[in-house]
């Protein structure tokens, strides 16, 4: 097995969880209600914890003396391999919940499949993560019902969010050569195989919330897996990395 390919794959997964977790952490102290402030912080913590676990395995396999912290804090946007969806800004609560449910419905399928990865540490991390993502999905989907089937304003904001974020969902199901090679060896999951089930789940959630799914004809953006990001990631990393980069030799 190609170790470099496996490390790259683990970093993709970890970057997805880290960036999504970081976005959720931005709500800390600012959420619309106390219960949600706590919920989003907890969900974000799950994401960041999963990311840390994945980075730790990647760092060990890579064997270049990097720690998880090195990988996170001393890497440029072009070397981040997360999906474009997760780096999109919070904007408002509806936007945040739509972004979350679009990822969670995918995350449940992905990490369920990864429990069967032939790479034991990845299977172990996935076994834990899938339980957590299942209740993330419960939380986010329930908010979609309330927001969509809520007031005129919540309905409008949620529909706008869905219309805005839809263009980043195609990338979730794009399997490139690296992923397919690792999948053939039983290491990775083929993300294109989740599309139908994800589409059914998302259709059910948004229909129940009285919202309209955007057209499948809409142009889908790609590039995250190649380090080609939207304008948002740079700002996120600047905030996230500033302390570590200001005091690079500091020990906690």
């Amino acid at each position: 097995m190609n170790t470099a390919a496996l490390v790259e794959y683990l970093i993709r997964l970890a970057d997805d969880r880290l960036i999504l977790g970081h976005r959720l952490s931005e709500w800390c102290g600012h959420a619309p209600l106390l219960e949600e402030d706590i919920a989003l912080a907890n969900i974000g913590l799950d994401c960041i914890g999963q990311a840390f676990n994945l980075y730790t395995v990647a760092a060990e396999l890579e064997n270049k003396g990097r720690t998880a912290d090195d990988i996170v804090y001393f890497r440029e946007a072009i070397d981040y391999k997360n999906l474009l969806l997760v780096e999109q800004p919070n904007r408002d609560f509806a936007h945040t919940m739509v972004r979350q449910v679009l990822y969670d419905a995918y995350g449940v399928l992905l990490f369920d499949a990864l429990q069967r990865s032939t790479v034991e540490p990845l299977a172990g991390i996935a076994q834990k993560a899938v339980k957590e993502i299942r209740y993330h999905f419960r939380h986010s989907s329930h908010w979609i019902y309330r927001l969509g089937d809520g007031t005129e304003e919540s309905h409008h904001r949620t529909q706008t969010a869905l219309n805005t974020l839809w263009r980043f969902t195609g990338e979730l199901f794009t399997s490139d050569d690296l992923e397919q090679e690792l999948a053939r060896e039983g290491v990775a999951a083929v993300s294109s195989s989740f599309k139908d089930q994800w589409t059914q789940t998302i259709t059910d959630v948004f229909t129940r919330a009285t919202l309209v799914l955007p057209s499948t004809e809409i142009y889908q953006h790609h590039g995250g897996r190649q380090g080609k990001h939207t304008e948002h990631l740079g700002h996120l990393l600047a905030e996230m990395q500033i302390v570590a980069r200001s005091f690079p030799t500091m020990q906690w």
Partner: protein
Amino acid sequence: MKNHTIESVKEILSTVMDPEIPVLSVMEMGIVRKIEIDGDAVTVTITPTYSGCPAMHMIEENIRTTLERNGFSVAQVKTTFLPAWTT
């Protein structure tokens, strides 16, 4: 040098409390997965309760220092994810 057994180590670990729920020990929490003794060296394998558990470092530290205080010259703590912890 004190002669330790798996049982005596389990007893020692029953005094290491969960930092967030101090009435429960790491044994009662089901965090301890394996104990390996090699003379006066011991390795304890633990598993995190949830992926982002911030108390794991503290638990690791507490297990290590408690074992060292109880006669082990070398106490190591390893982490495993399999099988996953559940309530």
